C-alpha cells in the first residue's frame, strides 16, 4: 500500500506506523462473538489483534477450509501457514466454510481492492497505469465475501485514481448504483459494505448506500481526503479522527509482526 510520504512520516513520529493504524482500525470492525471471514494480508493480523484485545470469542473462517477459535500462535504470511492449521477448530475444504458464508451466518468479511467507488463496489481484476490496461490478480474469495457476508470491510490505498466515481470492473459488488440495488440483484437485504479503511481515512455508508467520510487519520485533513477522492465525497457533520492504535493493540501487532513485514514496509 502506498500513501503520501508526509502522512507516513507523521505516523512514525506519533510512535506507530500507518500499517499499524490500519490493522488496529480493521481489528475494531470485529465484534466479540462474531464469525469473521478473515481474508489475506493485513486482516490476518487484524483478526489476531481483535481476538487478543477486545473480541476473544470471535471465530475466524479461512477460505482454504480452516476455522479457528484460538488465534494462531505466531506470525502469518498466508492463511495456510502451518501455525494457522495446527490447533485449528476445523480443517476441511473451501466449500465447508463457504457454505457457512452463503447461509448468511458470517457477520463480517475483509477485502482488498485496487479501486473502490462511491457505492462501495470494488475492483481487483483490471486497473490502468499511464492510460494502459493492467491485469490484476482477480477476485480470489473477495467476490464471494462481498456477495455473501452480512457486512464487509475493505482496506486500500487512498489515491484519486483508486477511489473513483465508478469502478471499471465490479469484482466485488457493494451497493451497486445505490439503495435497493443489492435486493434487486438477488443479494440478501441488509448485507453490504460497512467501511472502507484507507491509508488516509475511514469511509462509511449511509442508508442510500453512498460512502461518506467518517474519520480522518491523525495528521490528515478533510481537504486532503477530498482531494484524493475521485468523486465529491460527502463529509459527516461529526467527522472524527481515527483513534490511534492503543498500547495493547500495538503490543499484539508487534508480537505477531516483529519485523514489520505487514505493518512497517516502506
Amino acid at each position, binding site marked *: 500500500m502506498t500513501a503520501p510520504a508526509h502522512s507516513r512520516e507523521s505516523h512514525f513520529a506519533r510512535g506507530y506506523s500507518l500499517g499499524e493504524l490500519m490493522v488496529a482500525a480493521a481489528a475494531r470492525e470485529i465484534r466479540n462473538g462474531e464469525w469473521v471471514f478473515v481474508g489475506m494480508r493485513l486482516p490476518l493480523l487484524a483478526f489476531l489483534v481483535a481476538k487478543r484485545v477486545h473480541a476473544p470469542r470471535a471465530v475466524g473462517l479461512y477460505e*482454504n477450509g480452516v476455522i479457528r477459535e484460538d488465534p494462531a500462535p505466531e506470525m502469518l504470511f498466508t492463511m495456510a*501457514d*502451518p501455525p494457522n492449521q495446527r490447533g485449528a477448530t476445523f*480443517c476441511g475444504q*473451501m*466449500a465447508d466454510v463457504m457454505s457457512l458464508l452463503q447461509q448468511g451466518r458470517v457477520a463480517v468479511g475483509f477485502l482488498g481492492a485496487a479501486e473502490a467507488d462511491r457505492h462501495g463496489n470494488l475492483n481487483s481484476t483490471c486497473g490502468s497505469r499511464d492510460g494502459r490496461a493492467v491485469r490484476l490478480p482477480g477476485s480470489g474469495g473477495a467476490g464471494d465475501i462481498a456477495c455473501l457476508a452480512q457486512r464487509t470491510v475493505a482496506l486500500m490505498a487512498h489515491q484519486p485514481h483508486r477511489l473513483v466515481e465508478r469502478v471499471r470492473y465490479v469484482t*466485488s459488488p457493494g451497493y451497486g448504483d445505490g439503495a435497493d440495488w443489492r435486493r434487486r440483484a438477488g443479494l440478501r437485504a441488509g448485507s453490504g459494505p460497512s467501511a472502507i479503511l484507507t491509508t488516509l481515512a475511514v469511509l462509511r455508508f449511509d442508508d442510500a448506500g453512498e460512502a461518506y467520510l467518517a474519520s480522518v487519520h491523525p495528521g490528515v485533513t478533510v481537504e486532503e481526503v477530498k482531494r484524493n477522492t475521485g468523486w465529491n465525497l460527502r463529509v459527516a457533520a461529526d467527522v472524527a479522527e481515527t483513534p490511534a492504535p492503543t498500547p495493547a493493540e500495538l503490543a499484539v501487532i508487534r508480537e505477531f509482526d516483529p519485523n514489520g513485514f505487514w505493518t512497517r514496509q516502506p
Partner: protein
Amino acid sequence: MAHQSKLVSLSEAVALHVPSGASILMGAAMEQMIPFSASHEIIRQNRRDLTLIGPISDVLFDQLIGAGCASRVHAAWVGNVSAGVAYNLRRAMEQGTPRPVEFTDYTNFTIALALHAAALGVPFLPTRSTLGSEVLARNPNLVEFRSPVSEETLVAVRALAPDVAVLHVQRADEYGNAHVWGGLGVAIDGARAAKKVIVVAEEIVAPEVIASDPNRTLIPGILVEAVVHDPWGAHPSPVQGCYGRDHKFFSEYHDRSRSTEDFDTWLKEFVSGVKDRAEYMAKLGDERRHALEVKEHAPTAPADFGY
C-alpha cells in the same frame, strides 16, 4: 492385495498423463501443498497450450504462463500471495508475451462449485455468489437463472472436469490411497472431478498405514492414475507436518520475475537448469532446508477402528 502399483517417477507421470492441450487442476489446496515440482517438470517437458484450473495457485500459474506452457486460465486469482502481482500473467495479458493467455475469471467459491458439480456428476450447481458482479457478466460458465423451487435469482455454475488433477499430499501408498491434512481447499472435489489424478507424496507408506485411518484417506486410490514420491515437491509452499513456507523464496521470485530477462534467468536456475526436485533442493542448500524443517512435531491422537 491384487492391486498393481501405480508408483512412477515424476517425469514418467507428466510424460504419460499431461499432454499439451490438456486442462489441468493444480494449487487445489490453496496456499499449502502446491505441486511446484510437477509444474516444473511440465515446463521441462515443454508442454504447450495448457488450460490451467485452480482457485489461486500462488505463483505456480505465473511460472507456467511465463514459460509459455499455458493458453487459458480458469481461476479466481493469479498473483503472489505474500508479495503482490504476477508479472508473467501481466505480460501475457497486456503484451501477449511469451504468448497470449485467455483468462476466464471465477471467484474461489465458484471454482469450488464448478469442481463439486463435476464431482457430483451434475451439469451445474446453484449459488448466490457473484450476483451483480462483472465476473458473472463475463464468464460464460456462470449463468443467472430463476430458482424453480423459490422466488429467487441464483447463479448456475457450470461443471468443470479437468483432464488431470495434480494433488500434493503428505503420504500415500503405492496404489494411490492418500492421507492429506490441513486446509484442503478444493483438493477433494478436484480428485473426484478430474478425469485423471496424479498424486505427488512426501512419503510413500505401507498400505496398512493408510488403511488404519480411512477417514483420512481423502483421496481413494481407485481415482488415482499415478503416484509419485517427491519429497519437498511443494517447496516453497508449506506441507503441514513436513515443512514450513519459504516466505523469502516468494519475495525473491517477485523481484526476479519483474522483467522477462530476470524471469528467464530464474527459470534457468531453478527449473530448466535442474533435472529434478533433488537437484533443486541441493541448489537451495542445507541451511535453508533445515530452517524450513518441522521444529516441533504435533501428531494427532489415534482413532480406534477396533470392533
